[in-house]
């Protein structure tokens, strides 16, 4: 230790140290802040559409099948039940976000990633998913199927 040899800390020295320290700190922040903000992607324009007309006709979907459609920027799943009725859900699994599918052999919706099962009301009935699939409303408008959010 050579502390004894150094001059006693004057308040001016302390002030200069403080000034230098805050300047360096400020410089580091001035570099890190824009880099941090740069890495955060700008918010994507969320598709304002709350309804979408499916690109296929009701008759294209035979009973006991399902098909993925684009709902804004996210996948949706329309299922035609064995009785011929249409149901639509968000196709994003509530577990870890994989895209689910309709399994004709099981008669319900299934996620391949972690073996999650959902019934035809979207309820999670097996496997790890913690919540039901978001259900959409399907309306037949003439020869078109229209899927909309909410009821």
């Amino acid at each position, binding site marked *: 230790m050579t502390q004894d040899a150094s001059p006693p800390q004057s308040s001016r020295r302390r002030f200069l140290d403080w000034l230098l320290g805050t300047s360096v700190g400020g410089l580091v922040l001035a570099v890190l802040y824009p880099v941090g903000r740069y*890495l*955060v*992607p700008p918010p*994507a324009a969320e598709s304002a559409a709350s309804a979408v007309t499916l690109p296929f006709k009701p008759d294209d979907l035979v009973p006991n099948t399902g098909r*993925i*459609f*684009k709902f804004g*920027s*996210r*996948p949706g*799943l329309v299922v035609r039940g064995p009785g011929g009725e249409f149901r639509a859900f968000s*196709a994003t699994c509530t*577990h*870890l*976000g*994989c*895209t*689910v*599918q309709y*399994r004709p052999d*099981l008669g319900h919706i*299934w*996620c*391949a*990633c*972690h*073996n999650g099962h959902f019934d035809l009301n979207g309820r*999670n009935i097996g*496997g*790890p*998913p*913690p919540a039901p699939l978001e259900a959409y409303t399907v309306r037949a408008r003439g020869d078109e199927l229209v899927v909309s959010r909410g009821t």
Partner: protein
Amino acid sequence: MSAVSLRQRLARVGSWLDSRVGLAGLWTAARHKEIPVHRHTVWYYLGGMTLFLFLVQVGTGVLLLFYYRPSADEAFESVQFLMAEVQFGWLIRSIHAWAANLMIFTLFLHFFSALLLRAYRAPRDLTWLSGMGLFGLALGFGFTGYLLPWNELAYFATKVGTQIVGVMPLVGRSLLRVLRGGDEVSGATLTRFYAVHVALLPAVAGAFLGLHLYLVQKHGMSVPPGVERSGAPVRRMRFLPNFLLRDLVGWLAALAALAALAAFAPAELGGKADPFASAPAGIKPEWYFMFTFQTLKMLPPHILGLEGEMVGILGFGLAGLLVLLIPFLDRPAARGEPNRLITWFGIGLILFIVALTYIGYTASPTK
């Protein structure tokens, strides 16, 4: 030009370099490096083997950059072109894929041997920390590299892998957006992973590797406490040339294995990623993520009022932290005393990983 004058010229170049770089000092240090010889010496080869495979990754990775195009529209096609049209393109990509897998495998072995032989004891605790950092970076390399061919499997593996980050409390959602470059896995995710895979991770890994190798040179090889306690004098082998030549035999064997694996089981590509397709049945992550994947699959939806996957992810995070801090938690080993607890912990960890990986590969996908 006679042979003598050539030798003289070389000596002159040598002394010119030495006066500027100080090669003689390095050479003397290398000549003095010794490796302890005992019944566990074989485990000393795994670090060097991992290093060799890493160098193979750097070499093949640079070659892949000559043809790869990092965009959602072109990535899959550029890899397809590389595999089908470019001479030996299949070989370079297959070696890159296989060496990645072998590197993670030898890294696992290196990790468990260091754990079970207590190589983490002070003053090698910082070596352990830098090694754990490299382990994390290697997994990062694997995860980001997996997406780059932009195929179906990679797309959903990345979707799940990034979603796992999003499950973390408080910061999860923002971290997920930074990782994905948006709310969904998209072309923005691809360019981000590309930048991380070919620039950020190599730079950080280079720094960690430098520190790790420097510390290994500084402290020398750790002699396991069991061998130390036996009291028998530990024999030593010179690193140059005895140990290095043995290392080279291993590297040559690894290169032969890589060539054979690449030739007989070339890397596959599968179908192009489609964000509007269902996840295909039988989807699997890379084998070294299989045990985490299978654990998440088997956890119930809710545990003690929390979402099952959050409990699983917090559990893995906690286990990782525990492993990281082992040098500071294992007090008996620091005093050179036996500590059965660490042995059982290590063996338990191995059994857990092996068992869940086995279940992951054999379980029916719908059960």
